[in-house]
């Protein structure tokens, strides 16, 4: 059918072109801005002769980053591992809890105040208590802090996703006389999947932040947070900043990976 072929032809080109355009602007514009800001920063430090304990120059930070890349990488691995475990555990708990809340209204009603309370607790503030509970020689406390931080956005987004089933899909399943398990598998869960990944994307950078901040309160010395505090304490400010850059890169990596997974999973689903 010719008209049909033309139909898809136009949608295909329509979909490709804005993507290519936006790729250029989304990459180029922030890159230009970044170069300008870093240039101005370097210039300001040199012209006004600013002390490194106030603001080190970008060049000094970069030199430190290159020089200590092995230990920055080591720190990223330590913090990243805690964040990853926290993300995975928190995701599983959040998703399972959302499934339960969706299936059983009683659970939903019981969970609502708990989750609301949990979402206002500054989770990292629990870190000192958790170090005492699990011991300061292991990473357990950090993983738990990251996991609790992750649970909340994952839980809320999953629960919302499970409730997005379109009436027309529900009626279709009713017409097919489908079993509840079949309905869940065919319609409810696939509808929720993009929402789950939106929750995970939000949670991913939170997990890194939580794991890193938790290091400030104690525990073993194998993460970026510890490295930042100890290098600042020994007045090596450019090195402290180099570790901060490592933390930024780590957070970005978590965010980008989950974003790519989300885009891939939700690529045919509108409005999510």
């Amino acid at each position, binding site marked *: 059918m010719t008209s049909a072929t033309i139909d898809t032809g136009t949608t295909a080109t329509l979909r490709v072109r804005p993507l290519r355009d936006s790729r250029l602007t989304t990459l180029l514009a922030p890159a230009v801005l970044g170069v300008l800001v870093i240039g101005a920063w370097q210039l300001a430090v040199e012209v006004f002769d600013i002390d490194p304990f106030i603001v080190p120059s970008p060049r000094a930070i970069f030199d430190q980053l290159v020089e200590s890349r092995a230990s920055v990488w080591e720190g990223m691995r330590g913090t990243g591992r805690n964040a990853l475990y926290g993300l995975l555990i928190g995701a599983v708990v959040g998703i399972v809890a959302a499934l339960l809340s969706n299936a059983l209204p009683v659970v939903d009603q019981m969970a609502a105040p708990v989750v609301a309370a949990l979402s206002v607790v500054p989770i990292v503030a629990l870190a000192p208590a958790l170090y005492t509970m699990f011991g300061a020689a292991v990473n357990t406390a950090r993983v738990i802090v990251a996991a609790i931080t992750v649970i909340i956005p994952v839980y809320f987004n999953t629960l919302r996703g499970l409730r997005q089933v379109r009436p027309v899909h529900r009626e279709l399943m009713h017409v097919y006389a*489908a079993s509840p398990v079949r309905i869940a598998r065919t319609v409810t869960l696939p509808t929720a999947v993009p929402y789950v990944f939106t929750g995970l994307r939000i949670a991913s950078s939170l997990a890194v932040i939580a794991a890193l901040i938790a290091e400030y309160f104690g525990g073993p010395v194998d993460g970026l947070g510890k490295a930042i505090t100890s290098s600042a304490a020994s007045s090596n400010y450019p090195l402290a900043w180099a570790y901060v850059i490592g933390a930024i890169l780590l957070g970005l990596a978590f965010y980008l990976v989950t974003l790519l997974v989300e885009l891939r999973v939700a690529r045919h689903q509108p409005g999510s």
Partner: protein
Amino acid sequence: MRANAVEVTGVSRVFPGRKGREVVALDDVHLTVSEGEFVSLIGPSGCGKSTLLRIIADLDVPTAGSLSVFGKSAHQARLDQDYGIAFQQAGLLPWRTVSDNVGLPLEVHGQSRGSRRSRVAELLELVGLADFARSYPDELSGGMQQRVAIARALAESPRLLLMDEPFGALDEITRERMQGELVRICAETGAAVVFVTHSIPEAVFLSDRVVVMTPRPGRIIDVVDSDPGGSGRRDDEFRDAAGFFHTVARVRELLHGGPATTTGQAVPAARGVETR
């Protein structure tokens, strides 16, 4: 003797309204649809045409009266998958390819992938979308999505097809083409059709009988036969035939409050009905 496709006897549907005010969506409706017959339900919004279709589909239950689908209760007919259904929204699952959407009812009812494949290919051929088997719904135009939905409704070769304004969201040009295709598909499958629409020409073009309904309370005021005459074919020639215009005028007259009702009151003029 074989049972009629649909038999509706004295069906009423009353919705509880706010402050105890009840809304009578359907009031004492009688309707028979024979095997292989194409019947349209037409009327302004609120006349209960969709409610009637939903009751036949067992998506709603009547508050009074009874109905049978192929001699069984609507509930049993649904469990037996005696009908296929298409809604105004195509309602495709966006994460499934076109073929997986068409094969959905077969899959839900436990047919193996192998036996599904040939049936799905056949159905896509029927609706002219064989080249789009691996596309996703968001890559199709509205008309194509609706054809996928029709193919899905036909998947289990139902002897009854229920359609709730399936072309309502399409532009006029696509709509006329889809009507032509539906006529062809019905001729090929021999299924009876109950078709809800608010377009008079659409109802007259497609149906053997046009059931004209009025709102508040939802009632059938008349049933108009639509005979393609001459060639007996419903094609573009029929759209230009004098008989077509006569039937359109007749339906329009009824909708706009022609004859008096049984209670002696004039039927209020129908609003929201397309008279194009």
